[in-house]
């Protein structure tokens, strides 16, 4: 295939857009910033200690995508396939929100057969749309087969690059880490993992509110 014109045309986008995409990388929060944040939020720490995670997202675009992924914005539809004891009904904590659920199954499997399930991604965004990066948001990936392929929460938590902490919510142990925020609005970005009902959960949260993550974990596991 010859280089399509649109690929060449992309070479004419603004320099600022290119350097913006060039520069960004998730980084560990600077210790002094963390200390300042902790000092400023000291009165909230006890609440934070009771709190928890945050997650990421899912979906896809390959020829087999519709055969291996069931995508819906309806909790009722996803609950009909996966059951109602996966905590995802507890992700919506406000009246106005956008949600998206994606169930992935193995190739050749059936959406009706739980044994074929690989993972379920649930994203809740309290902004203008499901992809509103400035909206308060929470993501949860439930691994049905114990693997977390492509879920970098798992990798980041084990990388040693981020300081991991542990907290307990109603008997459930949650390992979590703070990450550099992706934008100035959602200054509190946290990734976490825990086990529930025999499944591994990977979550991430982005919010201007330092209590959001803890509140979500309380809501899910409390």
């Amino acid at each position, binding site marked *: 295939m*010859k280089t399509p014109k649109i690929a060449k*045309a992309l*070479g004419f986008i603004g320099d*600022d857009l*290119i350097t913006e995409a060039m520069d960004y990388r998730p980084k560990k929060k600077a210790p002094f910033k963390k200390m300042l944040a902790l000092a400023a939020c000291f009165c909230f720490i006890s609440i934070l200690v009771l709190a928890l995670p945050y997650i*990421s997202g899912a979906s*896809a675009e390959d020829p087999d995508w519709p055969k291996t*992924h069931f995508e819906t914005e309806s909790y009722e539809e996803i609950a009909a396939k996966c059951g109602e004891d996966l905590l995802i009904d507890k992700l919506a904590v406000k009246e106005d929100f956008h949600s998206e659920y*994606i169930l992935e199954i193995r190739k050749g499997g059936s959406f009706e057969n739980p044994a074929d399930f690989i993972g379920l991604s649930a994203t809740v965004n309290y902004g203008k749309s499901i992809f509103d990066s400035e909206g308060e948001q929470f993501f949860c990936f439930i691994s049905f087969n114990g693997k977390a392929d*492509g879920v970098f929460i798992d990798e980041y938590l084990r990388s040693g690059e981020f300081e991991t902490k542990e907290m307990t919510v109603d008997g459930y142990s949650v390992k979590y880490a703070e990450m550099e925020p992706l934008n100035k609005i959602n200054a509190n970005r946290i990734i976490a993992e825990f086990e529930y009902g025999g499944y591994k959960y990977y979550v991430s949260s982005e919010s201007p509110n330092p209590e959001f993550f803890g509140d979500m974990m309380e809501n899910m596991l409390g």
Partner: protein
Amino acid sequence: MKDENIIGLYFERNEKAIAETDKKYGKLCFSIAHNILQSPEDSKECVNDTYLHLWNSIPPVKPKNFPAFISKVARFVSFDRYDFLHAKKRFSEGEVPFEELEEVLSDDRMKKETEDSELGEIIDGFLRKEKTDSRNVFIRRYYFCDSVSEIAKRFAFSESKVKSMLGRTRKRLREYLEKEGVRL
């Protein structure tokens, strides 16, 4: 060395300019070329061609944003080589996401007499209206030609989320280009 100092060396016709460019931006150039060509040897040649192009164009050009300028040159040089190798049938299809881009706008669906620069400006306008995450994921994929897994790692997203974001952004761009009358 600061970018303005490196550019100064080009203006002085000091060959140290190439060495300093390589020192600071060699990896960037190689990464772009390799993402497009998938061949270390061809990529190295493209990096050298990029430096030659820089040497020949600076002066009179004085880039305001040196890394962006270099990346554009490396990209153009690499695409030229891609087309050359493809014409010679010396190329195996790699990771370059051309099919995904053609889904947005194939050459035969493009309004005649649309210049690359004109289309680029329209895409620029579209990207500026996108959310930061979506925009950066899109640019990493289709400007830098990063793989989905590289993007996922960079942004700490799952691969499926990256694919989903890309799919949705492509859909919005396709609609935008139709609205702008570029996509027939």
